[in-house]
Every structure is written in structure tokens, then in C-alpha cells.
């Protein structure tokens, strides 16, 4: 793929995507309750870029990622990749589409089959998706090992013989084996030691440049998100509260939740610490099963007004690349 032009084209679009789960009834006569883990998410991801999704635990980031990868059923909405309607695909067509869309998991310990050798793990997508001739596949595996910085003599080893960072490299090699256009990275470094994190983040960036990959990058770590992503969506209780390009989001965050989230991160940057403007938000997120009406963040918002508890604020553009869902932030025009 050539260098990303300034106005790059869209690879992935999500339209009003909802993923909900029916929970077990508490008694025979109780109404089954519905948990909307992802509630009306609309997003688009440009080719060759990184879309970051950030939020606290339970905000629906991983559910959204699994839904995009068709690993969870979507209850409403549409997902298109490269013009293909992903949600309508079935059977063989879906399997073929999977080669364009791969996943890197959070936990490099549980996401590799302990009984397969490293080379077999990396080779598996090639075999399963019938990519390249059988004889070419060995070459491809060797090439992949080089690309992710593993030695060729490690090909015959089992996962338990690798360190956490090396295992994540195997996971990355497996993900890029089929030459995908989209790679979904779900907290790819949060299980790793700080020293190893940098190695993996640099590897992901290098691969993106070399292969023109598009990433959906999920993390709860705002430092990592700031470092890796071109566009960022902030999620809270299944909804996007704010979405903007990297510079707008971090330099001029608009939503009270984004502001609080940013100010809560302890920082080694002395300039940041000196500008003491910590916004404390109290309490925990509300129970996702019985959500009150209005804005999801109302119960913890320091600037809450009466209307926030009644109407749900829509996600509106405040300028071309900045969308906010808050009654207190003025829309453009």
C-alpha cells in the first residue's frame, strides 16, 4: 500500500451499532432484563490510520471490537468494511472476509494454544483460510517470524517456552499472516511489563508503516492511546461520549468525562503536574442493567444540570473532526 495520502479513504464504518445481551431472569415471573453493552455507536475508521477506543472497564470497548470482528452477534446497526456489508455475510463468504480482518488479544498467555508449536500457531490462519500454496506457507511463516522480531530457531518451540513479550509477538505474527487490512488490537500491551510494552508498541507502529495496516486500538491507558492513535473515541457505559482526532481530543477535550479521565492520570511530566487542575469524579459507574434516563455520565458529572437527567445528549459535531455528546457543549453552527 502506498503512503497514506492526507485525505485517506474510509476503510470501516459503523452505523448505529448495538450489541445487547439478555440476562437470566431473577425469578420465573420477572421480565428478562437487557444489557446494552454497546448502544448506538457510529464511527468511521480511515485507511492506514489508528482508531483508538478508550474507556474504563465495563464501557463496552471489547464488546464493540468483538462485534466488529463478527465474534459476537450485533443486535442492530450496520458495519461496512471496504464497501462490504459485514453483518450480512454468512458461512464461506464470512470466512473469506476474515482474512482481511484480524485480532490481537490482550492476554498472550491464554490466547495461544499451548499444545501447538509457535510455527503452527502462526501458520494456522494460512491453512484455515487457504492462503498461498502449501509449499509457500513455510516461507511465509519464516518471513513473519523475521517481521515481528522472533528468531527462526524459535519456530519449533511451544508457547510456554516464550516470555510474555515474545508471546505477544507470536500473536501479532498470527494476526498479520493473512495480510489483513484491518487489525483489531484489544489491550495488546496491558498484560506486559513496562519495559516490554515499548517494544511491542514500536513493533505495531513499524508494521503499520511497512504494511499499511489499519488499527482499531483498544486501551484503558490514555498515555498509550495518545501515543498510538490518530483518532480517538471515548466510551462510557456503551456510548461514545466524545470522538476527535488526536490533537483536538488531548489539547481541547470537551466532554466533562474526558476532562476528568485525562486529569486522573498520574503523570511524570512535571509541566502537567504543576498545572494542578484535577477534576475528581466520585463514585463508580452506574449499574448497566438499570440505567437511569438521560446522560449516562450524569450520576458522576461535576457539571450536571437538570436536563442531563432527562434527555440523552446526542453525539454532535462541534467542528469537522470533533464530536461530543453533552448538553453543555455547543454544537457547530
Amino acid at each position, binding site marked *: 500500500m502506498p503512503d497514506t495520502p492526507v485525505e485517506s479513504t474510509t476503510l470501516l464504518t459503523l452505523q448505529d451499532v448495538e450489541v445487547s445481551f439478555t440476562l437470566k431472569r431473577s425469578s420465573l415471573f420477572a421480565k428478562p432484563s437487557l444489557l446494552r453493552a454497546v448502544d448506538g455507536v457510529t464511527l468511521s475508521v480511515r485507511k492506514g490510520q489508528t482508531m483508538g477506543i478508550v474507556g474504563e472497564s465495563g464501557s463496552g470497548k471489547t464488546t464493540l471490537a468483538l462485534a466488529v470482528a463478527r465474534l459476537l452477534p450485533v443486535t442492530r446497526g450496520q458495519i461496512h468494511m471496504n464497501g462490504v456489508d459485514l453483518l450480512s455475510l454468512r458461512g464461506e463468504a464470512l470466512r473469506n472476509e476474515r482474512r482481511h480482518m484480524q485480532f490481537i488479544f490482550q492476554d498472550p498467555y491464554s490466547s495461544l494454544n499451548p499444545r501447538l508449536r509457535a510455527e503452527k500457531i502462526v501458520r494456522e490462519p494460512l491453512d484455515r483460510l487457504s492462503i498461498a500454496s502449501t509449499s509457500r506457507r513455510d516461507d511465509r511463516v519464516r518471513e513473519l517470524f523475521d517481521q515481528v522480531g522472533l528468531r527462526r530457531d524459535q519456530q519449533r518451540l511451544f508457547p510456554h517456552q516464550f516470555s510474555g513479550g515474545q508471546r505477544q509477538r507470536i500473536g501479532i505474527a498470527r494476526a498479520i499472516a493473512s495480510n489483513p487490512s484491518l487489525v483489531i488490537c484489544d489491550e495488546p500491551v496491558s498484560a506486559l511489563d513496562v519495559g516490554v510494552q515499548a517494544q511491542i508498541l514500536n513493533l505495531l507502529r513499524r508494521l503499520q508503516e511497512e504494511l499499511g495496516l489499519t488499527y482499531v486500538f483498544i486501551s484503558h491507558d490514555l498515555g498509550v492511546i495518545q501515543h498510538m492513535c490518530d483518532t480517538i473515541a471515548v466510551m462510557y457505559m456503551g456510548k461514545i461520549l466524545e470522538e476527535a482526532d488526536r490533537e483536538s481530543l488531548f489539547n481541547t477535550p470537551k466532554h466533562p468525562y474526558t476532562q476528568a479521565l485525562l486529569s*486522573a492520570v498520574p*503523570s511524570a511530566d*512535571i509541566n502537567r503536574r504543576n498545572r494542578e487542575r484535577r477534576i475528581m469524579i466520585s463514585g463508580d459507574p452506574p449499574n448497566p442493567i438499570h440505567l437511569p434516563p438521560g446522560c449516562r455520565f450524569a450520576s458522576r458529572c461535576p457539571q450536571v444540570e437538570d436536563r442531563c437527567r432527562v434527555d440523552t445528549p446526542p453525539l454532535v459535531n462541534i467542528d469537522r473532526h470533533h464530536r461530543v455528546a453533552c448538553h453543555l457543549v455547543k454544537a457547530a453552527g
Partner: protein
Amino acid sequence: MTALLSVKNLTVEFTTRDGIAPVIDDLSFDLAPGETLSLVGESGCGKSMTALAIMGLIPSPPGRVASGSISLAGENLLQAGDTRMRAVRGNDISMVFQEPMTSLNPVFTVGEQISETLRRHQGLTRRQAKALSIEMLDAVQIPLPTRRINDYPHQLSGGMRQRVMIAMALACRPKVLIADEPTTALDVTVQAQIFDLMRAVGKETEAAIILITHDMGSVAEMAERVVVMYAGRKIEEGCVDDILARPRHPYTRGLIACVPHLLETVSAERPYLQEIPGMVPPLSDFGFMGCLFAPRCDRVETRCWQEKPKVTQITPSQSAACWNLQEAKVRVDA
């Protein structure tokens, strides 16, 4: 400055299949009353083991304190018997663990668990202990403490459980509070709440705090002094601001630079992160006569492989153990 807690030349050895490994190798540091000290390093560098050694909880066998001393207000804890240590733990020194999910007992209410400490150490009656437990829950900002006291751990969220742990640890007003990665399992907004709480309650009870972490951001936020550990050894020590602005050991420098820190102002520029190649050596390499960081160091020279680095006192408060110290200016950025 008279030290409240003083660790001197502490060596803790573990018997492994490959022989005896010093998981803590000649470690010394002092903790002043009311001070917050941070122990920093990657996993497997001996931070938690130091905490366990202070608490007298090194599993034995396979572990054993081989030499050195740990003294609390002049009393050598390593010579104290089991009964004495039981009186010290939870009373003079207490600990908050990393996992609030697994370190509370699931079959007792949180009230019973806080009361137990108070009744045991302070000899309070059931009723007095309960009243004080409610007071403690209130102090750690748990809403409706009179009702929450009858809750079981599973009825509380992660942040609430960690608050209960802190309430329990501070109930007897200890002189030293050891917090072992107290917020790694928590969300950032909750982490900020817990840090605020630890600062406030620590100040009120005048407890000195040892904060164990791998996150330089938390160190900057919470601690006054920092001890950087690598493979069981102290490799650098100093005031937080000095260490962050002028780290002298290559490992400290790497530890600060390898993390994408959140910046005040973001520009379009995005350099690659500085990596520390490789990883912490396995236990079988601990106690190696040269510098243990040599295989990962970008300034390694022959001497590093042969001799254990001498500790250099750089300023009265900052010292580092490296053969090749250099004025290293670090840019804290992404």
C-alpha cells in the same frame, strides 16, 4: 533525620533447582516518619519480596533472610519471635495488597474483618471495634458505612474493596503502611480517588508509606523519594523530582523513557518510544558478579561484566550503582 524503618544490607535467598538465588541482594534504605517512599522496577525485581521481608512473611522454605537487618524504631524485626511479629503486623506495619478481590476473606463481612484487627491488637470489645470500624469506613469515604459494614466483599466494587483494605490497614494507626501496587486492578478515575485517600489518611494518621509500583506517573504523584530496583539490587535512589529530571542509571532512564506518558500539549510529532531491549534476567542469574543490567544496557563496557557496580553518591540525596554514570537528560515525552 532519624529513620523510622531502616533496612540494612538485607539479603534474601531462595533455594531453586539451579541453586541458591539472592532475590534481594544487599539492599539498604531508610524510611523517615511520615514520608512516602516508592519502590520502582519491573516485575521480578524484588519489590514485593522486600515488602514481605519487612512484614516477616518470606515463605520459608524455600526463602530465607540470609543477612542484614530490618529495624523499626530501633527494634530489629529479624530477631523478633513469631509472637512479637504477630503483634507488629497489622498494628505497627500494615500492608495493602494488589488484588482487593483475593485479599479479603469472602466468608466474613467487611465489618468483621476490620474489627478483627482492632480487637486483636487494641483489645477493644466487639462493640467498640464495630463503632471504630464504622468510623474507618467513613474515613475512607464509603457511603452509608453503618449499612456497608454488614456487606460481604463480593457485594462491593473493586474500588470499594480497595477502600476497605485501606481502612483495615489503617485501623490500628500503623507507623508504616506498605501499599503493593494498590491500584493496578482499578480504573484511572478510581485510582485517582484511592491515591487522594491514601495521601489524606496517611497524613492524618502520620503513617509513613512505602508505595510499590512500576508506574513512574504514580511515583511522581505520590512519593517524595524513590528507590529503583533491578534484579534484587538497588540501582538508584533519590528524591522523585531529581530522579525524574536527572536519572543517572541507564535503567532508570529507560524506565522513564519507555512509557508513553500523557503530555500536557500534543503536537503532530510522534517519535518512536525508547526501548529497553530484552527483559529482567531469570532467577538463576541473580547474584551474578557483574552488573545484572549489562545485557540490556546501551552503555555497557567490559568492566560491567566483571565487577558489581559500586554505589556512587551523586548528591547528598541521590546515589546510583553504575560504572558508567552520565548526566542523562531525559525528555519525558511520547
